């Protein structure tokens, strides 16, 4: 199994345990600290509200293309560049995968750990995961 898939599995596993832990704490004590919200983690992308999945449109998670450039506003050259960049990000699913880069940093921040510790661990994860992503794009993932 490739390194990027392993990193993704680790982030999913951490997501699962933090969510379950939070539900358990809130059941034991309804006034407990609500430390995890849906921002900055992968579960927020599939939650259609009230912790339910969208069973009628599961394809909503697949990448979508960007709408047409508006020639009346903005610079035509930067609009073309942005459109190409967004097209790659959306149609190859890169925007979705990039979310795993920021996930551990958001977890550690949610738990109110010291800022310096969060920065150091988050940076380590960022650098390693971005390197793995680049290697994967170039076909060098081992």
């Amino acid at each position, binding site marked *: *199994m490739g390194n990027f898939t392993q990193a993704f*599995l*680790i982030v999913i596993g951490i997501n699962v345990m933090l969510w379950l832990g939070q539900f358990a704490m809130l059941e034991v004590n309804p006034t*407990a600290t609500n430390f995890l919200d849906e921002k900055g983690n992968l579960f927020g992308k599939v939650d259609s509200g009230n912790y339910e999945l969208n069973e009628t449109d599961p394809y909503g998670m697949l990448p979508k293309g960007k709408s047409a450039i508006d020639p009346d506003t903005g610079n035509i050259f930067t609009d073309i560049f942005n459109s190409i960049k967004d097209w790659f990000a959306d149609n190859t699913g890169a925007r979705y995968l990039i979310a795993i880069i920021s996930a551990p940093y958001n977890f550690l921040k949610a738990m*109110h750990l010291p800022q310096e510790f969060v920065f150091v661990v988050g940076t380590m994860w960022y650098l390693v995961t971005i390197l793995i992503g680049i290697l994967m794009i170039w076909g060098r993932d081992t």
Partner: protein
Amino acid sequence: MVFFNESGTFGQLISYINVNVTGSLFLTLLFIVIMLIMICALFRIPIEFSAIFILPLLIVITAYVGDFLAVGGVFLIFIGILIAKNLGFK
């Protein structure tokens, strides 16, 4: 101290450690968690098996003592990584 039975044996133990040793409920509970992990290390039990005892304890403690969120959260991250390792890859 509303979340444990102070008249029981272990409840009295926690109360006495709190009053006479640490002076803080957070440090008392941290001490208990560290002791559990050390017992596993001493008896050569993998730390993963200590999760069976420590995880429910941490969930209840973190639910009532908000300061324990850092310790409980880090332990939950550790368990999440263990689950990913065992389910996904060797």
